[in-house]
């Protein structure tokens, strides 16, 4: 055999082999932050999705095929996130559940959109994600322009705060939610005395706290994640600041209580409705804890996101992103968090943010 013939034969065989492989499973990408300060909160939804996919596989998979998970860590970094998006596409995924951080989801969604891959995030709340007209970008959580409003209204109307300080972590998530909070708080007649950003690497807030104490603010809104939130809480109390600390869903992780020794009081966060009381959620929590240990705040969202995605694929009868997107928008879906449906942008039609507070080393709905 001539070399060229041999090569072309090899190429054909290889192509056949790869086709073969592509055909016998449906690949779903699972990604989010699993390294760095957000590792704890970011791994939880991935585990939730894994559980959902395993359940589907136990029932025989989807469209006559088994589901294969392709898990990637985006380290919570926008640059890594786009690289991960490329990798997932090269691996041949039909859809992606992820990313966790808004700062990752937004640039990655451009990559998915170009490649025609469907993306559903369990946790990215920055409004920008669904505001660019991408047909195959979805989220199964609320938006910061919803939770920022709930938080600001709570501070003004319930806590009667006149003057507040707003600090953000300079990420897409932190800056976005800080802006919404400030706007709403000022519209409601309050004064934002300090409005500053500190980097995600900052662990000494004493400089900002000195400005806050000088400004006469009686409460602080932290637009960022739980590790820095816990440190900020400790340092505020160390400096003798007794006012309330408010925050968004990024602060909602049990690690916050480890950092604050479970002693945190007057901490008020916005998060989705309390699912602990729902009987449907109990079975999920039992299975989750048996497999992965204590659940994270977004575990259930990862589970719901994967279930809704796979149900829509089953309904569409294909993994084609366009058809699945249409299917997702066509009806309401039953999830552990209640019935959900998606609007034209890919957002939830109703995201019920409620105020949670820290009590006895736990977050409880108010």
């Amino acid at each position: 055999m001539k070399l060229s013939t041999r090569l072309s034969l090899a190429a054909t065989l290889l192509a056949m082999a790869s086709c073969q492989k592509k055909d016998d499973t449906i690949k779903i990408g699972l990604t989010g932050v699993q390294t760095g300060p957000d590792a704890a909160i970011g791994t939880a939804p991935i585990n939730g999705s894994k559980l959902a996919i395993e359940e589907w596989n136990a029932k025989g998979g989807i469209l006559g095929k088994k589901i294969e998970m392709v898990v990637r860590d985006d380290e919570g970094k926008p640059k890594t996130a786009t690289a991960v998006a490329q990798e997932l596409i090269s691996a041949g995924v039909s859809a992606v559940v992820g990313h966790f951080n808004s700062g990752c989801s937004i640039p990655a969604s451009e990559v998915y959109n170009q490649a025609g891959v469907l993306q559903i995030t369990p946790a990215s709340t920055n409004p920008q994600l669904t505001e660019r007209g991408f047909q195959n970008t979805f989220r199964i959580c609320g938006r910061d322009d919803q939770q920022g409003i709930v938080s600001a209204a709570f501070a003004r109307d319930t806590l009667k705060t006149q003057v507040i300080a707003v600090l953000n972590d300079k990420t897409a998530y932190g800056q976005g939610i800080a802006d919404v909070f400030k706007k709403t708080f000022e519209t409601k007649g309050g004064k934002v005395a300090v409005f500053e950003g500190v980097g995600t690497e900052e662990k000494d807030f004493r400089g900002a706290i000195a400005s806050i104490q000088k400004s006469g603010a009686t409460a602080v809104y932290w637009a960022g994640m739980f590790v820095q939130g816990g440190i900020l809480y400790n340092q505020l109390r160390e400096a003798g600041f007794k006012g309330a600390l408010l925050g968004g869903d990024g602060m909602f992780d049990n690690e916050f209580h480890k950092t604050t020794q479970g002693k945190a009081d007057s901490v008020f966060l916005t998060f989705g409705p309390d699912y602990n009381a729902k009987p449907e959620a109990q079975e999920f929590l039992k299975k989750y804890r048996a497999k992965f240990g204590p659940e994270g705040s977004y575990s259930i969202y990862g589970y719901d996101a994967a279930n809704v995605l796979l149900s829509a694929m089953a309904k569409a009868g294909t993994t084609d992103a366009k058809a699945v997107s249409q299917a997702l928008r066509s009806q309401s879906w039953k999830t552990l968090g209640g019935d959900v449906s998606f609007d034209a942008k890919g957002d939830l039609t109703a995201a019920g943010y409620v105020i949670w507070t820290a009590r006895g080393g736990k977050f409880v709905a108010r």
Partner: protein
Amino acid sequence: MVQVLINGLARGSVYALVALGYTMVYGILGMINFAHGEVFMLGMFGVVFALGLCTTLWGTSLALNLVVALVLAVLFAAGWGWANERIAYRKLRGANMLAPLSSAIGLSIVLQNFVMLAVTKGKVDFPHFYSDAFTKTHWTVLGARITLLQLTMLGTTAILCLGLWWLIQKTRIGISLRATSQDRLAASLMGIRVDRSIAGTFILGSALAAVAGAMVGMYQGVLAFDSGYSVGLKAFTAAVLGGIGNIPGAVLGGFLIGISEDLTSYWIGSDWKQTSTFVILILVLILRPRGLLGERVSDKV
């Protein structure tokens, strides 16, 4: 205002201690040890592990455990400093300048990833039992609140700097260190064991970084595998600001950067904190290319 200065001094004392390690190594070898920030981070973890060990071995005795843990962490970090020099730099001593530099950066990545994989990808909380004693005790001075920890940080840094000065100026070890930094070949001809002096420099610098790591662990309350990065960068900047290779310069640079950071967040806003540090650095380097206390050395012909 007094509060801002106290916070800045406390922050600066950490930069000063870490900057000493950069400047001493530069002084003796003419290279920048980019893995020094990681040794600081290893010191942080060392203290937390040693505290855990003490607690399991004989219970929670505050003062005893802290002293034992600090000693263990210093030994641990000093060991790493020594090992780093043996593994990554000694073989490259005659090589092109860029070789030890790449080796240092590589070592820093290896150490970070080692801690990430072997310890945790997330964060570790400093045991509150030990840090509370230092952060909850405080006095009010001129309207400012100064914690026992801040006082400890300033005091420890002052004592260590004086100790280092004494060691370098007044002891035989100091003489051999100074001789090695002035002329390695001549020093070796005079019977000074050059390799030993160089290893000693790494050990000293690493021990200081470990003490800084222990204090920062308490001060911030939380540690992670990447904790060494930003402190290392600031401390390196401090060393350059003060004149790299110059020991009092590193201490001065550390305090200047610490205070300037806190003053910036107080006067202008935290958003500008990073910017101000580097603006100061650039200005100083334009006016005094060798740093604030850097000596003007004519090029050797």
